[in-house]
């Protein structure tokens, strides 16, 4: 796979831009805000040095893909698939929406489907694995609606693991994907 072909993913009304160095301060500002930080497992302040080190790691690993979500010309959040294990065929997706105007709207799911096509069709992963804090009810609900299932022996864990197989993702998204393809004349 040649990543340069996938620097921009544009589909379903959103555009995803592969994270570049000039955006890492913007991302750091978003990530350090209490409204985003409180939903993350790592809640300490991220310094510019930590961010730089992190970017060097993710931009050279070949296993981490972070994109800025653009909708109608506005940068509204970040979506990613990280720690991809090509042998196991799995990786951990994540998304956060910085701009509150778009929370609870269709836009995050449009971004998620756009990223999903990259995950399933380009990276050809077999499953996505996520970790969600047990008290993040909204994220659990959203991910269950997408087809994620709680992994075995996770009931008493605080940062719980959920899994979504490619088959379940396709099954759950079939109707909405058909609508999106029609809406966007694809």
């Amino acid at each position, binding site marked *: 796979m040649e990543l340069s072909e996938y620097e921009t993913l544009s589909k379903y009304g959103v555009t995803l831009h592969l994270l570049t160095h000039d955006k890492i301060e913007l991302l750091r500002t978003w990530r350090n805000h209490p409204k985003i930080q409180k939903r993350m497992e790592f809640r300490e302040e991220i310094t510019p040095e930590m961010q730089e080190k992190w970017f060097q790691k993710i931009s050279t690993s070949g296993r981490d893909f972070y994109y800025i979500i653009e909708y109608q010309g506005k940068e509204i959040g970040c979506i990613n698939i990280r720690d991809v294990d090509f042998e196991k065929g799995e990786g951990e997706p994540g998304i956060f929406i910085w701009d509150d105007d778009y929370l609870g*709207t269709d836009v995050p799911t449009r971004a998620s489907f756009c990223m999903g096509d990259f995950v399933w069709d380009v990276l050809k992963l077999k499953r996505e694995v996520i970790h969600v804090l047990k008290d993040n009810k909204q994220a659990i609900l959203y991910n269950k609606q997408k087809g994620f299932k709680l992994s075995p022996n996770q009931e008493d864990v605080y940062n719980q693991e959920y899994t979504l197989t490619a088959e379940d993702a396709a099954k759950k998204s079939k*109707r*909405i994907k058909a609508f999106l393809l029609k809406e966007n004349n694809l």
Partner: protein
Amino acid sequence: MEINEFIENLADQFDDIDVASLTPTTVFKELEDWTSLVALSVIAMIDEEYDVLLKGEDIKNASTIEDLFNTVKSKQEE
């Protein structure tokens, strides 16, 4: 186009919601089960059932189910 039928169609977009708990004055985005996925599912349902293509802004600007119903109705009449 009747509002009761619209409410039933809206309820179908949730995995588990009692349709009787929904009324025209329900602020749908405050429902516990409302998520971005449901929002997109509602847009798809409105396209399928009413042949109206809503934009994200239409969902964003509507507060109650009745607001959404009226938006769909006015777009049907355009």
